[in-house]
């Protein structure tokens, strides 16, 4: 079971050449230099299957669906088969005491070396009683499993930031993995659900370089979350030209203009949807005509209405002109003005009503 990765790939009919191509594209997607593809292929081919324990907490299984149903059979899916997934409640055949025993065995045999994947948030209210597995609370199980792991991958927005369970008024007291565990390296892969290739990319990076990839200030791999959706959006030229769809069925919408005024959260959302896309590169939300919901950002569920435009200037030219008039000397005043604007925006946050959807 613990043989090198390449042997398992070979058994499934993947040639070395195909694997080289895959690694070259993965390196490109992760913004690594072209030579990294070769290094990745060598390291991954020789790597032993790492033991992985996957703990689901307050979640909807959407993250598991996203990974396991990523357009099969992809090499992503196969590499995912190549990890030694020793505990995953949704996928494993074992149940009850057998299942718990498998988890304990994996934790004991691979102490200090296994990778812990968590999806779902952790409820802390009434001593974590809102979500229990085998009579033990999620927070209890997480602390036990985290103690012996090498690193934690928080899969999806719930594990990364609390997600929908944490949405106001957060009845279960849901928190993220990073709120509970402070002494282990944690990679957040937010998204509702997250993009499958990000998971493979993190795994590939871990196997190749023996370390987790570089993270941003919210704990996300920079390679995939470095740019905003807006920065890489193919509709960006329309934003720059001031061409916006005003409703979902006007001329602008039919011409594929920018969805900013329909509430697109692309300008403040860091994710790779615009470049990697979904369903094997078929399309992604903005391409299908709907604004970005911002699902890979903390508390996206409470960030105003999905169909409320962001409270930033919609006209970049007017914004630039205003900034030029103010001049460099008035920087302090501008920051105060921005703070006031931010407060105003915060108090102006409203819940979405049916009327918002029909405006």
């Amino acid at each position, binding site marked *: 079971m613990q043989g090198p990765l390449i042997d398992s790939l070979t058994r499934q009919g993947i*040639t070395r050449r195909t694997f080289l*191509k895959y690694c070259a594209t993965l390196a490109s997607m992760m913004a690594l230099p072209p030579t990294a593809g070769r290094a990745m292929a060598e390291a991954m081919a020789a790597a032993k299957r790492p033991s992985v324990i996957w703990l689901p907490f307050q979640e909807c299984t959407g993250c598991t669906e996203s990974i396991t149903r990523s357009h099969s059979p992809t090499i992503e899916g196969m590499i995912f088969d190549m990890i030694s997934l020793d505990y995953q409640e949704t996928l494993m055949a074992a149940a009850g005491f057998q299942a718990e025993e498998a988890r304990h065995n994996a934790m004991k045999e691979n102490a200090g070396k296994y990778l812990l994947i968590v999806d779902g948030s952790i409820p802390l209210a009434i001593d974590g009683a809102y979500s229990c597995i085998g009579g033990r609370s999620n927070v209890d199980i997480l602390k036990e499993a985290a103690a012996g792991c090498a690193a934690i991958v928080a899969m999806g927005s719930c594990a990364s930031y609390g997600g929908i369970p944490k949405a106001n008024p957060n009845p279960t007291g849901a928190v993220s993995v990073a709120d509970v565990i402070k002494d282990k390296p944690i990679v957040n892969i937010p998204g509702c659900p997250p993009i499958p290739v990000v998971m493979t990319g993190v795994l590939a990076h871990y196997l190749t370089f023996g370390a987790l990839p570089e993270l941003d200030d919210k704990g996300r791999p920079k390679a995939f979350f470095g740019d905003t959706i807006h920065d890489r959006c193919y509709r960006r030229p329309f934003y720059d030209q001031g061409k916006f769809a005003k409703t979902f069925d006007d001329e602008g919408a039919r011409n594929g203009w920018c969805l900013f005024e329909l509430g697109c959260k692309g300008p403040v959302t860091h994710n790779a949807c615009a470049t990697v896309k979904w369903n094997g590169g078929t399309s992604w939300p903005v391409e299908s005509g709907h604004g970005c919901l911002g699902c890979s950002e903390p508390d996206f569920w409470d960030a105003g209405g999905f169909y409320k435009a962001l409270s930033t200037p919609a006209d970049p030219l007017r914004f630039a002109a205003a900034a030029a008039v103010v001049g460099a000397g008035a920087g302090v005043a501008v920051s105060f003005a921005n703070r006031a604007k931010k407060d105003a925006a915060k108090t102006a946050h409203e819940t979405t009503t049916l009327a918002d959807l029909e405006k």
Partner: protein
Amino acid sequence: MSLETIPIHAVPPAAGLSGNAPPLLHELHAMLRRLLDTGASSSIDLSALPLTPADLDWLRDKLGSGEIAVTLQANGESTLDETQCSGIWWVTHRNPQGAVVAQFIEVAFVPELLQAQPQDVEIGLDYLDSIRADL
């Protein structure tokens, strides 16, 4: 229903030249010189650079096409086309759905991906053994 029947123009009007393509010719010149002097191959990851579709067309047009055009079927189609400058290859990788996933310009006598890999050759050898045994 196919995507074409949806009356939304998803592709913006052709963006113009950004001016980012011409410097690549200088870089390619240095890379080709290095290949001749030291035999070291190198490559440029085109998707990592801010190039518009028009920039890519311009670059492709300037480099022209050479004598060899290779199609590789490996987890989707890849094309490895020699340009008019022998030793410079335009490499496009597609996924099984046909979408471009990566694009490189490689400077090498033969792109690495074209060479048979020893591990694959071993599998071929085993296969030959098995059909010889059946003779």
